[in-house]
């Protein structure tokens, strides 16, 4: 049974403080793959706001964790996402998978990241010099998910 830690956070977080205990909980595990996404800077974005719909967003993340755990042979899966207002450079998402074999950990992180936005119901808007702009879906997101045959 894979250990699971799925959270929505409304305040800034430090991925290192999540990954350390997550790794320590599974000593001798084989491998841990971690992806941390940050709010990009240098593109004129002053702030990013993520809104969510509580009754769908967290259950969507748990359903995605179920799929990743069913698909890959994992010892643990961590899935943490920020909501609310963020500044460039702040972590927005952290997904970490621990497994006995390398390919399962890397595959689970890749799979989870490809599906997280569609599974978890987030709406993003960016603040630029001329005000707030909603972010539309990208065709690339669909192509990324298609890689997994569903």
């Amino acid at each position, binding site marked *: 049974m894979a250990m699971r830690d799925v959270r929505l956070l409304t305040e800034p977080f430090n991925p290192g403080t999540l990954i350390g205990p997550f790794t320590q909980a599974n000593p001798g595990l084989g491998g841990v793959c971690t992806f941390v996404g940050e709010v990009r800077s240098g593109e004129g974005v002053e702030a990013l706001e993520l*809104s969510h*719909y509580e009754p769908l967003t967290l259950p969507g993340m748990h359903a995605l964790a179920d799929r990743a755990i069913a698909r890959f042979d994992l010892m643990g899966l961590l899935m943490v996402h920020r909501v609310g207002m963020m500044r460039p450079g702040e972590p927005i998402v952290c997904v970490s998978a621990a497994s006995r074999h390398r390919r399962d950990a890397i595959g689970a992180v890749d799979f989870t990241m490809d599906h997280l936005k569609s599974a978890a*119901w987030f*709406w993003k808007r960016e603040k630029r010099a001329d005000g707030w702009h909603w972010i539309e879906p990208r065709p690339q997101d669909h192509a990324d998910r298609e890689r997994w045959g569903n």
Partner: protein
Amino acid sequence: MIRVVFLGKLADIAGTDADGFALPDDEINWDGLLALLGPQLAEAVRAETVKLALNGTLLPDKAALIARAGDEIALLPPVSGG
């Protein structure tokens, strides 16, 4: 009263994240909801890409909506990319 939650850019069109509406009858269907929302929001939420959740559960077909007093309806535009 029903509560209607507007996500993403629908909140901008609505001018609020959520609003309460008095029901004209015991229950309300999709056309009744569109009438309550007014023409601008009705136009926006008719788009095929806008989904509807009733009390936290997505409806496979939003046009099949039947809501009663105390229910929460969420109107969900496509999630963001990037």
